[in-house]
């Protein structure tokens, strides 16, 4: 049970990351590789500032600011120098590796677990529930429950805020930039500015996820960003598959969050399968594939669906 709560907590933090990737990939169709650098950037900034004695909220905010900066740099390189978006991301990601080492002053910084944004929730949960809670007949440490609730709140908050933002005038312009840049330019709006703002917002979320993740695991590590963009893309696409082709922003956002949760759950199941240590990623890939393909395949075999398909074909 505590494994489930911990997995969901990681899933919610990765949902924030996924929403960041969602913004760049779904809205702008750019797989923004900056994520591999901005995720550990958020962690590094937070760890360093907490070490310097900052309070956790300011340290998290600073991490988000650092993410914004990283995204703006990627966006600027892309639009000002007309460099391919993927290469821009690679350049910034590469540079951020050194920046992160500089920020931390080491390749790895521990974080005092009692001084994180989750600490008040953990202790509150401890005060309300005592040392441990009974959930579905299983004993769960109350701190796990606190962490779960905290990350769930953060993910929902970010999801709602993002939905709201994409409905604002600026957000609509951004979506339009992704969908039909020529029309946006015809309306005398700068697509370049929209791309820079979009990538800044995207990396803000990713850095925020990095910051939350570092606080959750109590350390930041220079190598923690490796493959993050791939995980984010996988979650986005998994979510897209879950909800199907939708026009509603809210549903797409919810799909991305669900994709992140499901991905982490499937990794946890792969871990629990108790296979050879070397096979983790292979098993993860297969499990995710089954999760995506399985339901569609089942649905296609349902007679009603077949009938509908036949009617559509006719």
């Amino acid at each position: 049970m505590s494994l489930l709560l911990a997995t969901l907590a990681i899933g919610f933090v990765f949902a924030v990351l996924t929403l960041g990737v969602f913004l760049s990939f779904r809205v702008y169709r750019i797989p923004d590789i900056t994520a591999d650098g901005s995720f550990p950037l958020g962690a590094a900034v937070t760890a360093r500032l907490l070490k310097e004695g900052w309070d956790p909220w300011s340290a998290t905010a600073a991490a988000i600011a650092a993410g914004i900066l990283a995204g703006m740099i990627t966006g600027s390189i892309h639009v000002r120098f007309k460099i391919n978006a993927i290469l821009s991301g690679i350049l910034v990601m590469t540079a951020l590796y050194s920046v992160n080492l500089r920020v931390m002053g080491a390749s790895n910084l521990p974080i005092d677990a009692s001084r994180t944004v989750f600490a008040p929730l953990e202790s509150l949960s401890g005060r309300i529930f005592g040392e441990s809670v009974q959930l579905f007949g299983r004993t769960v440490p109350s701190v796990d429950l606190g962490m779960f609730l905290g990350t769930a709140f953060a993910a929902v908050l970010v999801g709602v805020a993002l939905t709201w933002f994409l409905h604002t005038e600026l957000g609509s312009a951004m979506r339009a930039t992704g969908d039909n840049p020529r029309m946006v330019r015809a309306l005398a709006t700068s697509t370049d500015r929209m791309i820079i703002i979009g990538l800044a917002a995207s990396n803000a979320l990713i850095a925020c996820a990095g910051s939350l993740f570092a606080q959750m695991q109590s350390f930041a590590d220079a190598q923690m960003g490796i493959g993050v963009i791939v995980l984010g893309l996988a979650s986005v696409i998994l979510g897209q598959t879950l909800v199907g082709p939708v026009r509603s922003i809210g549903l797409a956002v919810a799909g991305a969050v669900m994709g992140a949760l499901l991905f982490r759950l499937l990794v946890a199941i792969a871990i629990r399968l108790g296979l050879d240590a070397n096979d983790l990623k292979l098993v993860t890939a297969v499990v995710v594939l089954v999760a995506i393909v399985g339901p569609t395949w089942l649905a296609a075999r349902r007679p009603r669906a077949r009938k509908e398909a036949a009617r559509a074909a006719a």
Partner: protein
Amino acid sequence: MLAGLRRLLLGLILIAAASAALVLSDRSGQRNDLRSPIERIAVLQINSIQSFEDARRGLLEHLAARGVSAEDGDEIILLNAEGDVGTLGQMATQLAGEDLDLVITLSTPATQAMIRANQRGTPHVFGLVASPPAAGIPLGAWSPESPRPRNVAGFGTMQPIGPLFEALRACAPSLRRVGCVWNPAEPNAEASVRIGREVAASLGFELLEANGANVTEVVTAADVLLSRGIDAFWILADTNVLAAAQTVITRCRQAGVPVVTNFPAMWEIGGAINLGADYPAMGRATGVIAELVLRGVPPSDVEIEDFVPSWLSINLDAFPRSWRRPKALLDSASIMLDGAGPPIERSIESPLAPPSALALLADLPPVAAPRPARPRIAAVTYNRTSNFEDAWEGFVTELRRLGYRDGENCELDLKDAQLDIAALNTIAAAFAQDRHDVVVPFTTPALQAVLRKVKDRPIVFSLIGDAVGAGAGRSNEDHLPNVTGAIVAADWEGMIRVLKAVAPNVRRVGTAFAPGEANSVIYRDQWRAALAKEGIELVSVAADRPTELPEAIDAVIAQGVEIVTQISDVVSGSGFPAVAKAADRAGLPVFGFTPAAVSQGATLAVSRDYREVGANSAILLDRVLRGEDPKGIPFMLPTRTDLFVDRERLEEFGIRLTPELEALVTQREAPAAPTAGGGR
């Protein structure tokens, strides 16, 4: 709105299903809480005669009472040659080749066969050897001159022949001739006979002897003796005679000749006076010595003594009418059969083991808490590097040496996060939930993830350069209460000694390092600090990938270093040949810190072996599983340093080893590089 919710349904169902699967996999609370030690023991006996079976039973009972038994998860191999000396030799050879904690032999032939076969010196405890000197093991304490191998301990169980003959003389004052059969090939029997002859002579009767080398011959020999006219027959400690005892006694009784034996249990089959060893008690005494050795007493500390817990049984029905029945003798019998009624039994106490063994036992500290049965050990690494592989190999090998066998008496579970930081945290959470007995993180991120999740049970880390920096405590001694482990540390002082000996005027050395690797940065800083004390400057250039090493080393060399002293990290571990090549081009020697460095082009290496770090964590793990509080165990530093050299390269660079260094050079060949490619 409703349509929107239906869109979310599939995702929600899948999430719920995956969650349910995870909750159902929560097996916490299914732990087996039995606790006991884990040993691998063999018991070798020559045949199945009753006394040996009794002794073995006593032995196993004693060991079981000390928590060593098959039920407790220990492996106890019972081998019985069933009287065949050839088989005995094969069995001894087989046992000598196995990885055992202890071999126990019962009987003289089994003991001798094992001593001959035991080339590797597996600890060996013997029992039921009537005369150790006759078997080549002198009585008394072990000394370097002694022919007794230092891995052997036991005690002599010479049968009480004098007291038996005295009892016989007391019952039959007119006795003139006593017959016995024995096998000259059996030192035990020979020793008994030698004593028997002396005692018989002193008591004024003659001992008629006949030889029999197998059961048939024994019966024939007994018939011969009976035909020559004897007043009594003596069954002594000879394996063949024992095997034929029933027949021999029947023949004797048919001839009207009473039988006396050194085997108290023989009252049942018609032995008249039976004074001899209490075999279950001898088995227990053997068990005491086995216990000493299992608890770490060197076998050579055990003094070889004669010790025979004996008891007397009398079968008055087997007494000839002419014999007397002295009251003192009858009173000292533990069992006496007189007529049709049930035998009279009396219990007579005797000590548990030879006095010197009991003294050693008393000196041992109270028994440490035993390890849990089938301990569950959870290991996790952030990724698999060459350093990890070495440490893991050392860890697993040492665990095996300590008696842990994965899948048999312990469960060893390794998870590799494969560089996925989120998976690392999920693994830590799974370990936290799974009620493993102890969690073993390799690499700094793994330690940190585990520290966050696992609070209620011991953590024994491995392969950590700076555990204090990772947040495991304030110092190597003052640390988190549930944490201990083995630290990796290079032998900086050792390398400085070498540097000063071979290049006394060196002022500037260089290395590449990997800023992204926690251990690499720590090493660089430690090496810089150690060199600074000697007034030597360290030039370091970053290389985060093996492909960046040539440029990094070129940059180092460009700053005027005299020797490349390449610190050990994952990047240089896989790219060491590149380091050596770059230095070669500039004509500079490379000194390394890993065992493999020399085979990859280093001139010499002052190395700590990551295998030792892994082995150290296995040792700490064992201590923790045995109940020691991790809080009191300081983080363990490696101690062993090897100096590997490439003679050709030494000559090439004109480096002369001082005689002191020459003496330190590790003779064994440096291990080959994990990756292909030499330095040239």
